């Protein structure tokens, strides 16, 4: 929020700087009208005030990052796990008294933030690669990595009549304009969709119809808004209470693609935070596994 306001003001000043001298110059040819109306429209944030405002905003933006007492666990969570995490955090607080400060983001961005010193105790990634990498780089505590959830890939359409019968036949028929997937280079679900299509021998024939979301959230959005008739998305998204159209779906059997395993890891900063270790224990408890499963993930107890 603060960022967008200061950005807007900066943009405002930028526009002003472009127009004002131009108008000043041109008005030399027409001194009669004293035409600085365009400039005066830009008069609102005076530079001195604005400077103070920006500093204030910068300070405000920096505040929350510092306030994390010992019984608070700062958790960086992959965006696809948002709703489950909200459900889990209530139970965790009830059971242990500790509270969670949760930051959601794409696994890649969270990784980059952690690698650059972001203050997190625990990292729940959407893949296995990033937690492993953090461990190798000495930013995570060795021996604390484990798979907390396994994603389920589904071919989904909000229309009840689309994904019925033989999914392979449906894909072969190509009777649709667009098939949405997450970007295979960026997102584990995209990778799994790629492997599935490759396994069916349809990757190259369907290539012109593929639209790629930068993450699985965007792939879902393409289908949910009707821009793509169907897409490979996450079961958790289709099962989410926020999804109003259950539609029709095919759960891709897991042997068709490499598993979409999501790993958690204790970060160096959380090494001596007892609440952080308590949270990781809580995450593996049968109650938590039940919740995770109910949201559309496979869990190790399955």
């Amino acid at each position, binding site marked *: 929020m603060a960022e967008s306001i200061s950005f807007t003001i900066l943009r405002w000043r930028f526009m002003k700087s472009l*127009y004002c001298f131009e*108008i000043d*110059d041109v008005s030399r*040819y027409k001194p009669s009208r004293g*035409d600085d109306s365009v400039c005066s429209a830009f008069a609102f944030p005076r530079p001195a005030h604005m400077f103070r405002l920006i500093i204030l905003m910068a300070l405000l933006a920096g505040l929350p990052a510092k306030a994390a007492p010992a019984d608070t666990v700062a958790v960086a969570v992959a965006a696809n796990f948002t709703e489950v995490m909200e459900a889990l955090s209530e139970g965790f607080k009830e059971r242990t008294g500790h509270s969670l400060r949760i930051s959601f983001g794409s696994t890649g961005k969270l990784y980059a933030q952690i690698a650059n010193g972001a203050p997190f105790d625990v990292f729940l990634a959407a893949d296995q690669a990033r937690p492993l990498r953090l461990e190798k780089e000495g930013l995570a505590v060795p021996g604390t990595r484990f798979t907390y959830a396994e994603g389920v890939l589904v071919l989904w359409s909000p229309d009840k009549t689309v994904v019925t019968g033989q999914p392979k036949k449906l894909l072969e028929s190509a009777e649709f304009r667009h098939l949405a997937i997450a*970007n295979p*280079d960026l997102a584990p679900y995209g990778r799994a969709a790629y492997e599935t299509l490759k396994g069916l021998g349809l990757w190259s024939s369907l290539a012109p119809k593929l*639209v790629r*979301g930068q993450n699985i959230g965007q792939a879902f959005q393409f289908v949910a808004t*009707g821009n793509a008739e169907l897409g490979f998305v996450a079961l958790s998204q289709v099962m989410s209470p926020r999804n109003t159209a259950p539609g029709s779906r095919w759960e891709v059997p897991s042997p068709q693609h490499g598993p979409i395993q999501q790993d958690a890891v204790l970060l160096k900063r959380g090494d001596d935070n007892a609440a952080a270790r308590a949270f990781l224990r809580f995450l593996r408890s049968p109650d938590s596994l039940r919740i995770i499963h109910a949201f559309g993930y496979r869990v190790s107890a399955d």
Partner: protein
Amino acid sequence: MDVDFGPLGLTFKLALVTVAVLLVLSTPLAWWLAHTRSRLKPVIEAAVAMPLVLPPTVLGFYLLVLMGPNGSIGAWWVTLTGDTLTFSFSGLVIASVIYSLPFVVQPLQGAFEAVGRRPIEAAWTLGASKLDAFFSVASPMAGRGYLTAAVLGFAHTLGEFGVVLLVGGNIPGVTKVVSIAIYEHVETLNYEAAHMLSAGLLGFSFAVLVVVYAVNRRFPVHAG
């Protein structure tokens, strides 16, 4: 090391088409805004300035809904062309036109206001038609406004990310513009390719702004 420069070409094409469309659309709009006494003026001005303050995601989200096959514009487009507007180059042009609108309209409006009514009215009294007066008198006098508008519109479209991300679908050769390609390179830790594309974009945008500022400062307007 293999860097695909395709997105760079696509981006330039998008920016060129967008600016061409914008200059045609914005001229009458800016002219009207510069000279009208209508009570609607602040409303239209505010509407034009909206893309300045809205996050591109808001714009992109509404465009995704409107241009989708279930949206009003999108449905019409599907019956017309048989294809969806989202995930197409035409869709990107429409999105970019809306996104860069204030960057073209506002400099033009400023320039037309600075020219004022007087030269035009003088031309009318000398027997010039309205169109003739505009093209022979007003638009040459507003020449620098046109330069600023074109360059800003072009540069702003080059830097577009959020809107394209939402409505483009990242299709190589069709909607994968340079900002998306850079994002992808960064996310996949392919920093070398990201550097090459980013440095190109950075250098170009800087050069464009230097040109605008220099031209604005140095050259007087040769009126009429």
